[in-house]
């Protein structure tokens, strides 16, 4: 393993120092417990939107702190959910009378730690709700698993609820919107190469030259299925089919298409895949009305991509187009 790091145990804090230096106009970083808040937090009379999770998925979540998106992000150690006290610190720094919505990706650790933090906040008379995002169609949605993972849909969810909170929606409305988004967003991911967790020092899985992990998560956990490497056309068709058939999305739907690089896949391939996905959706009569292309929810240096589809309507379009000003997502300002 080669990485540009010092002590693996200090990698998150040292990286946050760089983030703080680079974006002092947008974010403020506190350490131990680590949390990142808007430079102007707490914002009066606004529902706070807070998310977090293990580090290693950047820019998610720390890169999305700022006006129109997150009030705070809580980065845990690499691939490890943050602890309740860290989440609680982020809540304290951002949450007032209008309350807060916690955006929680559906992993056992995240759910348990954020749940505990919400309980602690309730004990201090703060109105804190959680929404759990579980958009990964690779995992069978049954009681015989920990449930579906939260993946690419998280980025869209954070943008949309951030915009709703920014325009002044109350906590009930923000929460309802969040649940609606969760209900109509679906994702699938593939990996061509594994990530390497700094403290582990070894690639998270071993993948032969001719193999692809289909249905990969974002933590280097192996995918659901290992398939032979195939052309971009065939692979993207397989991904589009998995996502479209799940919700299902159908002819006449308007969608946001989010083509995400898992980190190590360069723009050339990400755009190439995006172009194929646009064509395949058009073939199915599904109209792409908004798009996001790039590395927004990653798994360290893992090579691969994910596709996320969100069914759009006028309200979601308006919220998507609303101004956002964060280190890694910025428009309208």
């Amino acid at each position, binding site marked *: 393993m080669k990485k540009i790091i010092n002590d693996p145990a200090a990698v998150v804090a040292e990286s946050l120092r760089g983030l703080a230096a680079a974006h002092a106009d947008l974010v403020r970083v506190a350490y131990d417990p680590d949390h990142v808040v808007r430079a102007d937090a707490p914002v009066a009379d606004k529902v706070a939107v807070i998310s977090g999770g293990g580090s290693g998925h950047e820019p998610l979540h720390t890169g999305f702190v700022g006006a129109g998106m997150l009030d705070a992000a809580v980065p845990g150690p690499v691939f*490890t959910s943050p*602890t309740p006290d860290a989440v609680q610190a982020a809540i304290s720094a951002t949450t007032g009378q209008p309350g807060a919505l916690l955006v929680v990706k559906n992993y*056992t650790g995240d759910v*348990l730690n954020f749940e505990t933090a919400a309980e602690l906040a309730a004990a201090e008379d703060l109105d804190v709700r959680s929404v759990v995002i579980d958009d990964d169609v690779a995992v069978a949605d049954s009681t015989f698993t920990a449930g579906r993972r939260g993946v690419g849909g998280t980025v869209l969810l954070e943008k949309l609820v951030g915009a709703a909170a920014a325009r002044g929606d109350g906590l009930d409305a923000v929460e309802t919107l969040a649940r609606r988004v969760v209900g109509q967003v679906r994702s699938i991911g593939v990996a061509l190469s594994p990530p390497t967790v700094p403290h582990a020092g070894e690639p998270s899985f071993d993948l032969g030259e001719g193999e692809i992990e289909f249905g990969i998560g974002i933590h280097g956990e192996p995918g659901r299925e290992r398939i032979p490497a195939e052309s971009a056309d065939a692979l993207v068709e397989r991904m589009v089919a998995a996502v479209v058939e799940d919700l299902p999305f159908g002819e006449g739907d308007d969608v946001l298409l989010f083509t995400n690089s898992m980190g190590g896949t360069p723009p050339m391939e990400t755009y190439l895949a995006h172009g194929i996905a646009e064509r395949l959706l058009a073939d199915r009569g599904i109209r792409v009305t908004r798009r996001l292309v790039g590395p927004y929810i990653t798994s360290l240096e893992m090579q691969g991509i994910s596709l996320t589809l969100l069914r759009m309507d006028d309200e979601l379009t308006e919220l998507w187009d609303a101004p956002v000003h964060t280190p890694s997502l910025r428009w309208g300002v």
Partner: protein
Amino acid sequence: MGGLMGCNAERVAEVLRAGGATVAEHKAELIELDRAIGDADHGENLDRGFAAVLTALDGGLPETPGAVLKVAATTLISKVGGAAGPLYGTAFLRAATKLGDASELDAAAVAAGLRAALDGVVARGKAEVGDATMVDALAPAVDAAERAQSDGGDPAAVLAAAADAAKEGADSTVPLTARKGRASYLGERSVGHADPGATSTALLLRAFAESAR
């Protein structure tokens, strides 16, 4: 003083230190188990947590075994993170609560503490035996502990029985399809691997038992 007979806060702290030592020693192994079917952090997480527990205990020892376990619980909750943090944290917290403010522990207290720990883990994580989680180690461990206690065993014997059963329970996860935690995403591909959390539970109980002898 041999064994845990009449064991006080200091002895409980010693037992915890032995647990911390075993976690440090087996850190790489636990990472490796988690790398195979999870996200390669279990050993790192637990080691970070137990190191903090030991530091906390070095800072001054509370008066009762329950209070010692409570320090361990809150430290684990605020240092481990992931799934294991809340689960182990809850286990220690429930055990601490069960022990109340008794100043010394007998075999019955040890068995009851373990039962409370298990109940806490199940309440939080909703896993059943056979889901391939730490419950697969802890549940048989508690049963064995209670049997040893009702057979008249001392605290050390209770912990030894628990450790033996936990080891067997951890091994039993190898052929299972995981149904909780991160390994469940793998479906049948989780078969053939020991669960990291079950393994760490067995290692901890073994260290506790040996330290208690």
